[in-house]
């Protein structure tokens, strides 16, 4: 596959756009604190990232986009834009599972638990094991659950767990009750999405790269999370 990667992250408060070379080398990255403004600011951010990378739209060879979980509106803004650009440019679009890609952005072996605030005391979360080779292995599958319940489920592994994402910061009083928890980064840049897609394709894990939204919650029960 020739051409660069356009990476789009719209599932959280930070709007992220990254441009990678075909081999994954970072050419440009933008992160913008823009809650509720993703639909307005995504295209300007893509334009700015391309300008920083010195590339034009036509030099994009493929797109990686976070397909969730996170803000429902944010997930849709990213997927709609990615699919439209894929259609317009005739290039492939890879929807990346966000929690898995977060864990995959860590290189030190161990247990990692990406957990995104889902309002009240719930989190969109999963537990992965980062190993020497290959993408992280799933230990607890992605789901929306009470943060306490999730951390209890992590306890039997008997090892330190690094909690990544914004849930730990929003619920410090809960997380502090679990001594095996280490607090990891709360935000991940958009570049990790492209890097994950490259690795998933190398490992022929194409199933992970669907463009179906990963809401992790049926719509009838859905209450809106922070909008994009």
């Amino acid at each position, binding site marked *: 596959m020739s051409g660069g990667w356009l990476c789009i992250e719209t599932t959280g408060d930070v709007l992220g756009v990254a441009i990678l070379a075909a081999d994954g080398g970072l050419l440009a990255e933008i992160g913008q604190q823009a809650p509720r*403004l993703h*639909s*307005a*600011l*995504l*295209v*300007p951010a*893509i*334009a700015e990232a391309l300008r920083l990378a010195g590339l034009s*739209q036509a030099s994009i060879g493929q797109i990686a986009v976070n397909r969730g979980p996170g803000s*429902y*509106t944010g997930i*849709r*803004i*990213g*997927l*709609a*834009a*990615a*699919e*439209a*650009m894929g*259609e*317009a*440019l005739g290039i492939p679009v890879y929807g990346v599972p966000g929690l898995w890609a977060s864990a995959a952005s860590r290189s030190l072996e161990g247990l990692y638990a990406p957990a995104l605030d889902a309002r009240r005391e719930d989190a969109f979360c999963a537990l992965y094991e980062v190993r020497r080779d290959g993408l992280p292995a799933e230990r607890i599958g992605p789901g929306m659950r009470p943060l306490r319940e999730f951390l209890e489920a992590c306890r039997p592994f008997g090892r330190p767990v690094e909690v990544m994402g914004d849930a730990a910061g929003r619920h410090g009083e809960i997380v502090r009750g679990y001594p095996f928890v280490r607090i990891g980064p709360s935000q991940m840049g958009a570049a990790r999405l492209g890097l994950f897609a490259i690795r998933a394709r190398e490992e022929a894990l194409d199933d992970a790269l669907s463009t179906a*939204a990963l*809401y992790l919650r049926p*719509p*009838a029960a*859905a209450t*809106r999370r922070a*909008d*994009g």
Partner: protein
Amino acid sequence: MNDLLCLGIETSCDETAAAVLGRDGRLLGSVVASQIDLHEAFGGVVPEVAARRHLERIGPVVREALAQGGVRSEDIGLIAVTRGPGLAGALMVGLSWAKAFAFARGLPIVGVNHVVAHAHAAYLDTAPSYPDLALVASGGHTDLFLLEGPTKVRVLGRSRDDAAGEAFDKVARSLGLGYPGGPAIESLARDGDAGRAVLPRVGLFRDSLDFSFSGLKTAAQGLRRQGLAPRDIAAAFQAAVFDQLWERASLALRQTGCRRLIFAGGVSANGYLRERLGEALRRQGLALLVPPIGHSTDNAAMIARLGLTMYEAGERSPWDMGAEPVIHPFKP
């Protein structure tokens, strides 16, 4: 430039729609994917359900509209998209899709007002000409406005409570009819006698051109409890809706000096209302202008029609254009 085609995108409520319009105004393709089946069980549109379906349907709907017109996506020269009013999450799907497509291709984009676009559905068969008086009545809006140009609109009246289509839906539900209620009431009313039921004629705002359908709705629902036949209630309700629409519209026609009335929006698909309005206008030597069959309810052809007209008037929207769920007072 002469063969430039306009792709219209509409996702403001519960229809995912795309249409392709030629520069000459010829409609080449128009696809509307309805979600009625999806929302029926809830008795109304559930915003999160609607937004999810829009994302699933938008790509296929655009491809189908292009295929219908035998058009390649390379032939598109302009994008028109609904930016509001409507459901925020639903609007953002169409807007994000449209902006990204236009940006990737380096095409101009024009964001349009959904209600003003409804009035422009009447210009799908005939070239736009301004000024024109428009009455847009649907499940979400009842607006009477003077179109002074594609981007210049003077609001004369609007519903102070329920939209006309909303009243149709609610009365239909109380009569045990399905959703949407408009077609069900129209067909039931054909065998009904409007004279058997007395419904209020709303004169609360006699000095203004505003509408009110809430009291009428409640009164119609009350007749059911009095044991009146549903077909007579349906007929009386429709007649009362007509009276109110015509009272305001005829006053607005006199005030503005317009020689014709555009009647658009989902409620304008009602054959009884079309017929009565046409008759009343003809008696005064005036004309009724309605959208072509199938373009009263939400569609993307009307979005493309207004977008193309705005583009020709020099309008361009910036890349940071956002959704406008509530446009009040509404602007184009």
